[in-house]
């Protein structure tokens, strides 16, 4: 699915990723944890091609294709999806028009005809149920005036609509109450197949108890310094990151 080798990236003059190595196979779920400012969001931004970040070294392959050479929209067409930590409000663009544009551009990329209106509405109705999203939101502008929980559920709704191969959830649990987190996690689990993979970036093991990754990585100062199973998330929850910092020879 994804193969990242020695990835370095910076924003402006500041180097943030200092050599990331990561392999994700089909059907796997990986969690990435780490203290604030360690580069978790940067890693996700670089993978989806945010132009604010510059890759200075390293490689990333997505199903055999060189990810770093692709435009952000083509990475999306290939099946890469990012659930944003801070979903952007787009006043004046309705959710429906936005999703229709996204779906039809993907279909165009795949050489398919645009989806007709009836099909689209049906699909939208089905997928909305997965995250229990109010149908009224469809006529509103993208994320505008959505509550924090609605925004995050809306991200998972878009994921359901676009059926990506690899989804990156960037702190999708932050700002969610317990029930909303359950809905989001259930949504993600329902969308999981043996052919799809998922990267979950989070600070808390609560979401990981629901989504159940096979691997947990700890990102610190731009490198993955520790990798383990689900038990690693528990240890971090109880003891923080200091013991890991000590392990790698830092104060």
């Amino acid at each position, binding site marked *: 699915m994804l193969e990242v080798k020695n990835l370095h990236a910076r924003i402006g003059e500041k180097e943030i990723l200092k050599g990331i190595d990561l392999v994700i196979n089909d059907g796997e779920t990986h969690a990435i944890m780490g203290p604030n400012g360690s580069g978790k969001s940067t890693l996700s931004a670089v993978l989806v*091609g945010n*132009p604010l970040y510059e890759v200075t070294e390293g490689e990333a392959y997505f199903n055999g294709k060189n990810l770093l050479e692709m435009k952000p*929209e083509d990475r*999306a067409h290939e099946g890469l999806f990012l659930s*944003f930590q801070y979903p952007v409000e*787009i006043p*004046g663009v309705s959710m429906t028009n936005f999703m229709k*544009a*996204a779906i039809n551009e993907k279909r165009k990329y795949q050489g398919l005809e645009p989806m007709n209106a009836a099909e689209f509405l049906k699909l939208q109705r089905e997928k909305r149920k997965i995250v229990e999203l109010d149908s009224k939101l469809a006529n509103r502008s993208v994320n505008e005036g959505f509550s924090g929980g609605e925004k995050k559920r809306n991200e998972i709704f878009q994921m359901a609509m*676009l059926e990506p191969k690899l989804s990156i959830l960037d702190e999708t649990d932050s700002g969610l109450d317990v029930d909303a987190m359950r809905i989001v996690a259930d949504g993600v689990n329902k969308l999981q197949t043996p052919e799809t993979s998922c990267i979950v970036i989070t600070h808390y093991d609560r979401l990981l108890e629901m989504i159940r990754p096979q691997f947990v990585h700890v990102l610190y100062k731009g490198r993955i310094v520790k990798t383990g199973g689900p038990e690693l998330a528990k240890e971090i929850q109880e003891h923080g990151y200091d013991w890991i910092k000590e392990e790698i020879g830092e104060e």
Partner: protein
Amino acid sequence: MQSEQQYIELYEQARELICSHAPEALNAVRDEAFDDFRRQGFPSKKVERYKYTDMQKLFAPDYGVNLNRLQIPVDPYETFRCDVPNLSTSLYFVINDAFFQDDKPKGHLPEGVIIGSLRDYQERVANYYARLAKTSDDAVTALNTMLVQDGLFVYVPKNTKVDRAIQVINILKATPQNAQRQVSDLMVNRRVLIILEEGAELKMLFCDHTADDRNFLATQVIEAYVGENASLDLYCLEETHYKNVRVSNVYIDQQANSRVNHNVITLHNGITRNKLDLTFSGEGAECQCYGCVIADKQQHVDNNTLITHKVPHCTSNELYKYVLDDQSTGAFAGRVLVEHGAQKTSSQMTNQNLTATKEARMYTQPMLEIYADDVKCAHGSTVGQLNDAALFYMRQRGISLEEAKLLLQNAFINEVIDHMQLEPLRDRLHYLVEKRFRGELNKCAGCRLCK
């Protein structure tokens, strides 16, 4: 530059000719207009309300003026389809400056309503003509008044409501059909007089088009009297071509408790200058003035507004939005004048602009001038680019950069379009604006001549 000289000479030489082809009501104020024009000359860029558009330059070329009223035979129904069809409107045409007389059924107009030529209703016209559009204050209005020979007259009697919108297509056409020789570029002076008596209601839509590929210079003066408790919707849509120069002066007077919606939409043009002077003469009146501009290449659009609150308890709202691409320039200068004693005035003026390239230029100047101490007035202006975060968010969902820009620009302009009261026009404009951004709107898309 002395651009005015050629018009002064023209008038001195052709005064008799102009008058002989024009109604007495228009001739009555002609000499005075000429004196005012000669005294003022064209405004330089040092004149405050003309600082963003060089009038001297616009009027410098040698245009032909059809003073002899030579017929340019054209069947507008045959040669022209407006981009705003099927509005269930009553449709009228003005060819260059002349009201187009035809016997096509116009749908039922309520008793006493007049839509016709200024020529045919002289008594009524004489009572109102050139009162709001003072020739002493504006050289372009003076020039128009001095040269104009025909025009559109609209009258709605007391407490009469015109349900169907009145659509007027202004067609600029220099070449007769099947013409043997090339004719010169054309200057046209258009005139409109609208009178709404007490309690009257009217919706009007003007669509400006060019029907052939010549250089045009069109001056236009619209005077609108809106009586007590009357309601006027006045929409002006310009869809001309890059060789067109439009200088429009609109004057509106509002009596007590009247309502005005004024929308100016520039979809395609060459150089456009729209001036609006709106005065509240009676208490409790309200106006909504909206404008949107989509310009690219070398296009230039200048909207200049003055809203005068003479009396208390009136409300004015202005929202103008521009999207400027390539090397286009835009200007918005709006002034709200709250006169002494105009207490409880409420006024909001907003101008927001997107510049899509580094070469595009926007000049914006919102102004408030307040001589009363119990009013609520606000003004604001922004110039900026599309939101990068929103663009990236859309791209991450697979929407291409071009499409994402288009969606955002559309959304930006739609805020203005959504305020349109005329629903079919609103839907049509959503469609036209999108086509315009996609570059699919030809210079005059509805015109069969150009296909």
